[in-house]
């Protein structure tokens, strides 16, 4: 997982992107759909592209 590779806890990533820890947790579980702005903030924090973090192949 990209967050773990960056040695970040959910709380630390949440702090960096300006959301609560619960929001990060729910995004990781696929229970919350973040806005594009939040996706980009997470990508910038983890130095990854949108594709790498959020792309899912269509069923």
């Amino acid at each position, binding site marked *: 997982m990209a967050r773990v590779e960056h040695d970040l806890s*959910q709380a630390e990533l949440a702090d960096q992107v300006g959301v609560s820890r619960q929001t990060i947790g*729910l995004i990781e579980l696929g229970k919350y759909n973040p806005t594009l702005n939040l996706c980009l903030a997470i990508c910038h924090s983890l130095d990854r592209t949108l594709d790498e973090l959020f792309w899912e192949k269509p069923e």
Partner: protein
Amino acid sequence: MGLFKKQNHEDERITNIKNKIYAEIYILVIVISIISIVMKYFIYDFGIEGTVTELIILILGTVYYMFRSTRLGVVSAEIEMHDRKSKWSQQKKNLFYGVSLGIGIALFFGINSAVQYAEGVRQSINYFLVTALGSLMIYLPFFLIILVVGNDVLKKKSDKAVNQMLEDGESGDNNEKY
């Protein structure tokens, strides 16, 4: 032809705008209710009985928000976000508000009693002290219980709701590294 085929996704832009409008409507309802209470109570002299409907709207709205935000874990998230940005934690602020409200109301009742019912300086001071201290003994614990203990209870319930949401998956980390 697929003309009447159900769409899988709603237009989220429209949903977001509608939600924003609903939030504005709620603020409008609160403002109208407060204006109505002020006018009925102070201008038309209806007494507190005449403002029951507005009070019910305000109280039920607040209770519903508290209930839903606790069940959905929003209270914990809000406190976390607040404590991250603010110098004073939410709990310290609640303590400060509780004490301020208790002292403020006690002073108001004390002054009101001294001005309305007392004759002479000595009696005014006596009335002020008795009423203010009596009110302080009632309202200080009341506001402290409502604001500090109440908020703590809501936060605990909200934490529980969030943990339950996060427990369902594999990567809930309870604020630890992994």
